[in-house]
């Protein structure tokens, strides 16, 4: 059942950036001594004049990106998700979000699937931080193909964007590219009427696997790839609530402030139905990525289990 692994989303990011650089001389890229990890090195190799490695200095990097953007550039600034969001948050707040500067922040190594380096390098709360900044579009692509589209869409969008990508190779979700990607529009990967699984990032592949398991148990699950956390596709959420009556949200992030919270808000506002959440409640630790995903409950089995309980709960309520 396991899907074939494709390229890492950070790899797709780096390549997409180099592609964009060829098309648009206005694109500039900044990095904080991690260009070999964030993959901005591809852009740096081709366009050294439009690439600024600021050293280990994330706050300065985002401030510089704001200045470049205020002067007409499309500025992409990258570091690990935790460093760029946490260390440059104030700069993002005033110089980017409030000022409406055209800065694209791309945080790589998001989530706990970075593995052995452990907590200090993991983005557990990066999406929440991005969501707390009004005006920021927040994108969490699922695989390489979707990342490419997200990066393009971000460059075309005028205004601040945060894109979160990951370290490990990502299971392929979009075999033939992802041509229907639109900011703010969920992608329905599978239809179903007993329960809806809403996920982003690596959890999309897990949700698809969960849906297959559920099908074997006679439960028909809808799967939505919610690559855009803001602006959230509230129509798709409401439709899922109405038509399936139960929603499981899965994300590789602390549940307090990410996709789960956003979907729950939309459900509460538009059409309340029972919900379950698969994600993190605490910091993780060092370990092999797969082992961590198991230990912290971020697998297809975890999603399927929550879905089964939700469906049974609803059946009992009906009886």
């Amino acid at each position: 059942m396991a899907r074939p692994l494709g390229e890492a989303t950070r790899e797709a990011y780096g390549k997409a950036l180099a592609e964009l650089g060829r098309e648009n001389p206005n694109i500039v890229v900044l990095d904080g001594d991690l260009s070999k990890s964030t993959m901005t090195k591809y852009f740096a190799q081709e366009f050294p004049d439009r690439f600024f490695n600021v050293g280990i200095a994330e706050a300065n990097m985002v401030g510089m990106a704001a200045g470049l953007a205020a002067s007409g550039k499309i500025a992409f600034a990258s570091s690990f998700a935790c460093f760029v969001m946490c260390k440059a948050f104030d700069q993002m707040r005033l110089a980017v979000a409030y000022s409406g500067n055209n800065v694209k922040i791309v945080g790589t190594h998001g989530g706990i699937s970075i593995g052995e380096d452990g907590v200090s390098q993991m983005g557990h709360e990066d999406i929440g931080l991005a969501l707390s900044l009004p005006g920021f579009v927040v994108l969490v692509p699922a695989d390489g193909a979707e990342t490419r589209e997200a990066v393009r869409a971000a460059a075309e969008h005028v205004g601040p964007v945060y894109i979160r990508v990951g370290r490990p190779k990502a299971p392929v979700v979009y075999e033939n590219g992802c041509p229907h990607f639109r900011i703010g529009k969920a992608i329905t990967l599978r239809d179903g009427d007993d329960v809806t699984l809403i996920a982003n990032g690596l959890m999309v592949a897990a949700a698809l696997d969960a849906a297959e398991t559920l099908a074997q148990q006679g439960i028909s699950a809808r799967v939505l790839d919610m690559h855009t956390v803001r602006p959230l596709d509230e129509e798709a959420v409401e439709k899922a609530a109405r038509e399936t009556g139960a929603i499981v949200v899965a994300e590789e992030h602390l549940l307090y402030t990410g996709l789960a919270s956003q979907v729950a808000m939309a459900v509460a506002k538009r059409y309340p139905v029972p919900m379950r959440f698969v994600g993190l409640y605490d910091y993780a630790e060092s370990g092999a990525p797969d082992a961590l995903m198991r230990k912290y409950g971020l697998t297809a089995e975890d999603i399927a289990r929550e879905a089964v309980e939700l469906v049974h709960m609803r059946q009992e309520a009906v009886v």
Partner: protein
Amino acid sequence: MVTTSVSVEQLERTARKLRRHIVKMLAIAGSGHPGGSLSAIDILTALFFGNVMRYDPKNPRWVERDRFILSKGHAVPALYAVLAEAGFIPEDWLWQLRKIDTPMQGHPSVKDIPAVEASTGSLGQGLSIGLGMALAARLDDKPYRVYVMIGDGESEEGQVWEAAMAASHFRVGNLTAILDYNRYQLDGAIGEIMSIEPVVAKWEAFGWAVREIDGHNMKQILEALHWAKEPREQPSIIIAHTVKGKGVSFMENNNEFHGKAPTQAELEQALAELAD
């Protein structure tokens, strides 16, 4: 508490043994940072085993202990090797580095090992924490000293200079920084990515007492650490010129080994080079 006197030769032998531990634990873990661990280990060896720091492995949280913070947290293999040698953690823990369900986190974590003084790994934070500890010693009238090791790349973080300014403003004489100046950061040579020169003049301008040494010359390291303990009303920094990957020929000044573990074959060669 360590009180016996040790010779330079003994310390050099210990450092060589700890280098073997570092490459071995990284090879077993399959990931991690050899370069900056090997550049730092002579200094850590002198600090912990050269009658410099006061500590008690049976009582890691002893209030009067001297504190050591590894601000460049990715060099944690060097710290673990020293903590094992000092008796804070069992030696066989070293082979669990980075494994799930163990205390051996990939970066220093106060939640997992009591002898770790600060959780680090997001670069730039250690000196501020050390300054806070140094101020607490003064408030509580305790005799301890705080040592903080920072990287040269790490010195690019603004917070390092905020702490530097504050430490001299608050006139803490019980705070010593050690700069592991191995001239490389992650993306390449520090002079090419973001120069921190003139680094001696910078620290002097920030009001610190500065001493420059060869960070692999055990005698010079010991002298500098004892110099740092002399009473004064300003913080002190030892600028230690080091070699990234020191001690393993194919890792020396080869920044590929900034964040890459040795293979089994590489481990064997490294162990042969580091043999007693």
